[in-house]
């Protein structure tokens, strides 16, 4: 087993275990913390793929901004009451687990039939395309229009969030 493979296996184990722990935690704060661990291991996986820019953005935007928002909302709602957090597990749960396992098997089957099986080395320019310099050049030339459009999306999200948070829903 090479060093790269060992690193990959470690990071994959951390990300899968933290994802599983995230969905079985009863307290949403613990869930959020495991999700942050998952995001960090994903950022490290991006580094193994030479995607430095995406890795650092993953930590800044996901682990930094989005998860802080989640934790903020969880603490704002104060869901600490144990009785209220109890969830009913029934036959539906086992059906869902069976479906998820089926989904994994399906994905595995598709990948085993695809040509991805033969690809074992990264492209020769993989280390080059992940840099901020290269991605910045692509972003501001080829993807300039989508990039500008994201500003509208964010504006709409800000306005929507403010309007929704202000007004009480009538019923």
């Amino acid at each position, binding site marked *: 087993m090479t060093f790269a493979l060992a690193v990959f296996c470690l990071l994959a184990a951390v990300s*899968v275990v933290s994802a599983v722990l995230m969905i079985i935690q009863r307290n949403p704060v613990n869930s959020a913390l495991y999700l942050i661990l998952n995001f960090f291991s994903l950022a490290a996986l991006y580094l193994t793929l030479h995607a430095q820019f995406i890795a650092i953005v993953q930590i800044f935007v996901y682990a930094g901004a989005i998860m802080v928002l989640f934790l903020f909302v969880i603490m704002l*709602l104060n869901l600490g009451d144990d009785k209220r957090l109890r969830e009913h597990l029934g036959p539906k749960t086992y059906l869902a687990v069976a479906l998820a396992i089926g989904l994994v098997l399906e994905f595995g089957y598709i990948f085993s039939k695809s040509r991805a099986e033969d690809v074992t080395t990264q492209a020769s320019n993989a280390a080059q395309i992940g840099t901020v310099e290269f991605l910045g050049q692509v972003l501001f030339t080829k993807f300039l229009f989508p990039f500008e459009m994201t500003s509208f999306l964010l504006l709409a999200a800000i306005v929507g969030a403010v309007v929704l948070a202000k007004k009480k829903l009538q019923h």
Partner: protein
Amino acid sequence: MVPLNYYLLLSAFMFSIGVLGVVVRRNAIIVFMCIELMLNSVNLTLVALSAYIGDPTGQMLVFFVMVVAAAEAAVGLTIIIALFRNKQTVNIDEINLLKW
């Protein structure tokens, strides 16, 4: 080197865990976090394919997915706050305003 398939299988596994969480959990915030997990597993696929093919388009798409995820998180959490204000619960079984 790590084969491309390992990355794809890992992200498929994480995606399935996210699907499982969305189906099983009843807490709206955790369901929402599972959606973030699914978005991230697809991001991993895109970055892996981008690195193995040698094309920056995949990483650009991940960048835009992150923008959409940020907007989605802001609006979605606000909806959860608005629901909690009206119903005093985030259990999605009790939120059935649109149920026929």
